[in-house]
């Protein structure tokens, strides 16, 4: 991380502009809990907080970084007992348990401020529960199909525009002795990504959300149609064998070694794939193709967020920090390729000049008329998501068990949404 004094000053200008009258130097304490434990995001966050510290030298900032997975369970403890002033989390349904338990602060007042209301409008929906906003987003990233351009060229294939082309491409890839898609379902959620896309492409965003909210049964015929489409891919042998044994990281060597031609994944897969030697001549990206032409394209774009716990001690300082994080310059800086390598949430920020970020940004801003979903395990309630993803994994291994799986999910649905 190399924030120069100049960018510092720009950030300062940005945040003071944004904060308007409330820009007086802060004093007192600010306790920040972060789940950004991977090396790059960790460095990004630490640098960003250091900049905030320079803006407010009298502020006593205390930062705690917790392992990303451990954080998911620890948050329950620290929100109820020893609350920080700012904490990271995820948007949409993933916040519901904490919002319902009254553990997140309502920050609708921030969203009234013109700067935020305009610049962050795109993530407002994901931050809203019961017409109130419960935090701000700080980054998001696209999902889509990352594929081996060189293999496609070797076989004379193009990026598919619809499901038929997707299948014919896949058939050609299988004929060449490769698999079409690599996936590792050991930790289940990767299968959720496939279901998100297949369901949104078959029946659209609204139907997918109805299912997420329990308004549609899993045994509904339309859900079966989605699974039928999926089954076509499974039956032709599109996915790597034994995917239930691998984590997503362990599934990457298949695409790196050319044993599989593509992977459906979030933009975070780019960094490890590049590191493994796939440069931009070998790795490319396309939007998940349309299946039902009557359905508007919708995308998954998971959003990571900052919240103020309801029991925070220094809520004014926390609000100022949130304003700082979402300000245009800070957003540009922390999301650039050298830092998070993701998309900024502020409309006035610049997207870093990176092939995949540009494609993803264009896709989400211009070619996703249906809507933007968060991700399977963020849109569906936690318990439903967990049971369902297990069912999805089972379906991918034993497609014949579908009836059984759907009935089981109906039963879970009945209890979860009561």
């Amino acid at each position, binding site marked *: 991380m190399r924030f120069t004094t100049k960018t510092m000053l720009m950030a300062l200008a940005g945040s003071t502009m944004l904060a308007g009258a409330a820009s007086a130097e802060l004093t007192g304490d600010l306790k920040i809990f972060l789940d950004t434990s991977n090396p790059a995001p960790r460095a990004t966050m630490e640098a960003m907080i250091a900049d905030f510290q320079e803006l407010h030298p009298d502020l006593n900032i205390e930062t705690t970084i917790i392992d990303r997975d451990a954080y998911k369970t620890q948050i329950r403890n620290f929100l109820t007992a020893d609350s920080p002033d700012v904490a990271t989390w995820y948007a949409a349904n993933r916040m519901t348990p904490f919002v319902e338990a009254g553990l997140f602060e309502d920050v609708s007042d921030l969203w009234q401020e013109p700067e935020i209301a305009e610049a962050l409008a795109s993530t407002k929906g994901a931050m809203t529960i019961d017409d109130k906003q419960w935090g701000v987003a700080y980054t998001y990233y696209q999902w889509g199909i990352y594929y081996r351009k060189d293999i496609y060229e070797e076989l004379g294939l193009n990026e598919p525009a619809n499901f038929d082309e997707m299948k014919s491409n896949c058939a050609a890839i299988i004929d060449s002795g490769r698999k079409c898609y690599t996936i590792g379902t*050991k930790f289940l959620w990767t299968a959720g990504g496939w279901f998100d896309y297949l369901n949104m492409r078959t029946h659209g965003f609204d139907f997918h959300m109805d299912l997420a909210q329990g308004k549609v049964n899993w045994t509904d015929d339309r859900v079966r149609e989605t699974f039928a489409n999926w089954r076509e891919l499974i039956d032709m042998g599109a996915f790597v064998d034994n995917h239930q044994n691998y984590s997503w990281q362990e599934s990457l060597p298949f695409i790196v070694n050319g044993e599989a031609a593509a992977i459906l994944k979030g933009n975070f897969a780019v960094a490890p794939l590049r590191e493994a030697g796939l440069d931009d001549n070998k790795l490319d990206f396309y939007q998940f193709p349309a299946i039902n032409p009557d359905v508007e394209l919708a995308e998954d774009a998971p959003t990571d967020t900052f919240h103020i716990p309801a029991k925070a001690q220094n809520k004014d300082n926390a609000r100022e920090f949130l304003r700082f994080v979402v300000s245009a310059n800070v957003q540009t800086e922390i999301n650039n390729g050298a830092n998070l390598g993701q998309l900024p949430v502020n409309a006035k920020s610049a997207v870093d000049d990176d092939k995949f970020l540009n494609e993803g940004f264009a896709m989400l801003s211009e070619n996703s008329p249906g809507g933007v979903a968060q991700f399977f*395990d963020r849109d569906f309630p936690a318990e439903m998501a*967990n049971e369902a993803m297990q069912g999805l994994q*089972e379906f991918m291994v034993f497609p014949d068990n579908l009836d059984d799986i759907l009935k089981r999910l109906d039963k879970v649905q009945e209890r979860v949404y009561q």
Partner: protein
Amino acid sequence: MTAIDPTIASAKSERGWYKRNEIAVTPWLFLAPAILFFAFYVLWPIYQSIAISFYDWDGLGEARYVGMANYVELMDDGAFEVSLWNNLKWLLLYLLAIPGGLFIALFLNQTVTGIRLYKSLFFFPFVISQVVVGLVFSWFYLPNEGLLNGVLGLVGLGPINVLGDPTMATYGIIAAGLWPQTAYCMILYLTGLNAVDPEQIEAGRLDGAKGWKMLWYIIIPQLKPATFIAFVVTIIGALRSFDLISIMTNGGPFGQTRVLSFYMFEKALSEYGFRMGYGAAIAVVLFLIMLIFIAYFLWSMWAEEKGR
């Protein structure tokens, strides 16, 4: 010397309460820290778990009393049934560690050059972390590159995907668990074998006992204390099987390798688990199963004491 020194007399009658009850009180004082900790860290949580199991609670908001509903739901929960059966498989198959440990101990109970090294090598798996054992075995089982399939391929079998196949995965994990557990039983038996009375072996030999008969009638009865401890630690080991499952399959494929402790964790404490009451109900069932064994252990220890 007829007159009693008044100071002594008064000192005697003024001895403090503690001095007067020293013999009765002292053992309790020594026990007090242990009792306090046991009550606070064992008994109180047991009570709390049982209490929570009657509630519907996400761990954050208000708890709602639901009576026996969690238990009723357990009856009808396929995943719970799978976990229960898996626990049973663990309990039964894990006991193989006892004969396994015994035979390795008998094998190693000889004096040849470097026997200490061999013993340490056999004991090694018990020293390394369960997490490492799990990782090593999951590589061993890997469907394509794994050593197991390499060996099976040499004799024209396989390939099999042990951990990816719901019917085999649990057995695969138990086999991994047996590796360190056998080593543990072996060390228990090795110490036990040191205490075997050579005169009895001599006497047996004079009476013509050898081989299996010698083992069964002379050696094993003398190893009874070691067998008891081996049984206790193996049962406990089987019931606490958690780390291997978590590392090797994460409960999968599709929940087929879960045991009760893992299922409880998943329901109550994991990333998607928000059902404290339901998790507590699973914990209570697990506790009842353990209680059977605890009662048996206590009873046999008590019988032992009484027999002396």
